[in-house]
């Protein structure tokens, strides 16, 4: 049902989109990605050594400006998994610059992991390919309701402050996992369109960057960004790859 990783290096796709999951150790980045790519859950905690990645191919449907659905594209997702442990920090942050979008994760059952979101945020701003990369805030382990330490309102406020979408997911049940990733993918694809599509008469070689000049991109721009939760319907899950199973539990 799902593409085997080995057959996915054939180059038969339209876009290679690189996303990266980051957050404190133990918040569930690996299990989250495992759930997303393989739709499985491994409750055992195996700490990630440095870095890892998973792949998945999805079909993305673009939206035209008038709201109608446009072309569909095959997107190859490379999902980088990073070690949350401090000792790997220099290695993991090095990989930030190669990712086009970020899943910033914390553990809903750990207040500390939530507090550290700010630190991760500044890490991203310093090391990502630009200062206001596309980020989705993910509170994981939503299924462990009785151990919950971070309230939805709290997290939502923080996300709003940064102007990024927020999702409460559960890698164990699969709840909202796909949605979080797809939302991020949509943000990245939109940014890509923005970067390229505006006719750039006076910047022959700098299309991409002249784009960035358009929104006031100073340090605060992340905060100033409108909180846009992108509409999801423009993403039609392809029957084979994208459709996650109904959340069990």
């Amino acid at each position, binding site marked *: 049902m799902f593409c085997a990783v080995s057959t996915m290096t054939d180059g038969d796709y339209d876009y290679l989109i690189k996303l990266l999951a980051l957050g404190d150790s133990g918040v569930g980045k690996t299990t989250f990605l495992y759930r997303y790519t393989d739709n499985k859950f491994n409750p055992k905690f195996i700490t990630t050594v440095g870095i890892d990645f998973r792949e998945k191919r999805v079909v993305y449907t673009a939206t035209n400006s008038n709201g109608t659905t446009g072309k569909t594209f095959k997107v190859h997702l490379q999902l980088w998994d990073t070690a949350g442990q401090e000792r790997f*920090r220099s290695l993991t942050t090095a990989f930030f610059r190669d990712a086009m979008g970020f899943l910033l994760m914390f553990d809903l059952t750990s207040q500390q992991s939530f507090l550290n979101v700010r630190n991760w945020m500044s890490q991203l701003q310093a090391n990502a390919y630009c200062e206001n990369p596309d980020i989705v805030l993910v509170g994981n382990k939503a299924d462990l309701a009785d151990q919950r330490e971070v309230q939805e309102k709290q997290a939502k406020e923080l996300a709003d402050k940064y102007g990024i979408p927020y999702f409460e997911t559960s890698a164990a049940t699969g709840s909202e996992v796909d949605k979080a990733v797809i939302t991020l993918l949509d943000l990245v694809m939109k940014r890509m369109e923005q970067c390229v599509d505006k006719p750039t008469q006076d910047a022959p070689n700098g299309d991409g960057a002249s784009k960035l000049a358009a929104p006031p991109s100073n340090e605060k721009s992340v905060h100033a960004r409108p909180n846009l939760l992108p509409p999801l319907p423009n993403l039609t899950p392809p029957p084979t790859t994208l459709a996650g199973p109904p959340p069990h539990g």
Partner: protein
Amino acid sequence: MLQTVELISLSFLTDSERELILEVLRRDEELRQAEEQRVRRLKAELLEIKRKGAKRGSGSYSKQSCGRCQEPLGRLATGSSQCHSCNHQVCRNCRGVCPNGSWVCSVCAKEADLKKCTGDWFYDQRVNRFSDSPGHDIVRTSLRKRPELRKRETVGELLLQNRVISPSQPSRIPRPKLKDLANEQAPPSEVSKAPDPQEQHQRSDTESVEKTSLNSFKNGTESSRGTPVLPRREGVVEGRSTARSSPVGSCVSSLPVPIRADEAHSSSDAEAALRHQGVSISGITPEEEALFKRNPRRSLKTSEHCRPTSVLDLRGGGGDVTGTYMGDRSKSVPGLNVEEDEEEEDIDSLVEIHKRSTGGSTLSLRSSKRTLGSLLSVYSEAGDYVSVEVSGEIVFSLNYDERTQTFSVLVKECRGLACGDTLRQRSNPYVKCYLLPDKSRQSKRKTTTKRNTVNPIYNETLKYSISQSQLLTRALQLSVWHHDRLGRNAFLGEVDLPLDCRQLDSAHVECVTLKGKAVPATLSSAFAQYKGELVISLKYISMRESQTDKKKGWKKKKKKEEGGELHVLIKEAKNLTAMKAGGTSDSFVKGYLLPCKTKATKRKTPVVKKTVNPQYDHTFVYSDLRLEELQNMCLELTVWDREAMSSNDFLGGVRLSSAASMAQEEGTGWDSTGEEVCLWQTMMQYPDSWAEGTLPLRSSMAKNK
């Protein structure tokens, strides 16, 4: 260099951890290679589309035809049929609709598409952000000249290339490609030493290009740079820099066993092939591509910047260096200093020089355009100078001011130069500077001459007004010369620095060892640089036909019986190099029928103005020729840009002869190749009928030895 390796070095990892990470990186490499292949394929597609019937430059195309397929456009179409990206008039079939409802022409659409599909939108931004990071000076020393690839470089790639991951145990690493490059190919001593000019400037052009267009974005980045840089970031940057040592390895071809050989080779081969294709078929050189993309504006800009200086130079030209000396020199070649006859004669002497200069002198691949900018320069091109053992180094710094579009070369000093005057053991050195490939006076700058020293201190700034995008296509050539008042000047050494991958916004002082003249490239190199094409038709009209023309009288008839006529119809040239403001040239074609290179065989077309695709439709007639004679003759056609106030610029040429004559005519050895030979032979084979051909122009008429 090596300390920086330590910074990203993962020595804290255990062996098994290292193995795990390496495994991940290898998987990543697989994906990356597939991606690289895909990107290359996509880019080839774009080239193909661009090549197909697109209008180039200005000129003979009808305004009422589509800029892409060249189908005529409907009358009503004008105005609404202009692509707002490239401003070409485009028919309905050659449009691509954007998601926002507007449209652009097929090429622009494809370009935008490519930017998305290849991920360039992302890499362009990233490159922009990290180009100013600390440690870049070190990075530069070891960069490879492949901006495209480097731009796409990922941390994973770097880590994998470098053995940083397992510095102490090469044995543990299963693949040879993971061996330590830094040790094998770039000994620390060498790297930390004064940078090699070949490697030093290896920096992504895209980075700098992006920068120009993005001042506003830079402001944004500035603020973040102001914030304290995290120690980790430093690690990243350093890691990036150290890893750069490996690409150097694979680009310096003489080095044995390049690591990543498989990948590097396959990609560079493919790219070379692609480039070759681009050059020989579609001929999209960077300059041209730029021209093609946003034609009029950009080229205009450059010319605007170049011209004024050239005018200045014209006066100061060669005179500033020599007074009496120049006079002496000119005497030896009559005609060189005669104003009126300049157009007539200087071209001849130039062509002569073009030929002579092959023999081990200065003719490099790029030095095709040549004028009599300075007599001295012409002589130096011709190899008429004293050669001494090159020694010493030159200290200079480069800077580009984006605001004023000024490129400054600060020549600080030279150290330990050779003695130009070997008899008296002294040197009067000056530094000459060109922005290659332009070797005309427009691009020439000189310092003053310092007397009697081998360690001259100049501290002189040589300035060029040039747009940054243009600058990136150039190479800086600094040569040091001994000025001899009475005798010949002596060449003391030079350095060539391509500017496409060089950081120009930091006035970093560089000290580069002087080198001897580059060995001229081989025969094929005359075609390696795309100079456009010449479309001609040849016909040999045999005696019989002319005999039918009996009315002309007995005497004339008899004369004609001695031989037929060779008609050379010069139809048109395509994609000539633009030499004038507005991206055009005022060109004409000149022909000689060798071996007799005199006025008797000299023919010229009228000048066709303001186009790089001139239609000449002019016939050269050579009479009294027997068919057999043609076997041992050579038709040399050269295209020139007419320059009213000074000497004409060489735009390219062809040399038609039968291959057979090469062997027979020792010493002359016309090096006609491929289509040139083909066309000549077809002409001889089928007298009285036209043989037409489109011949690629040589960038130099120099003959292969």
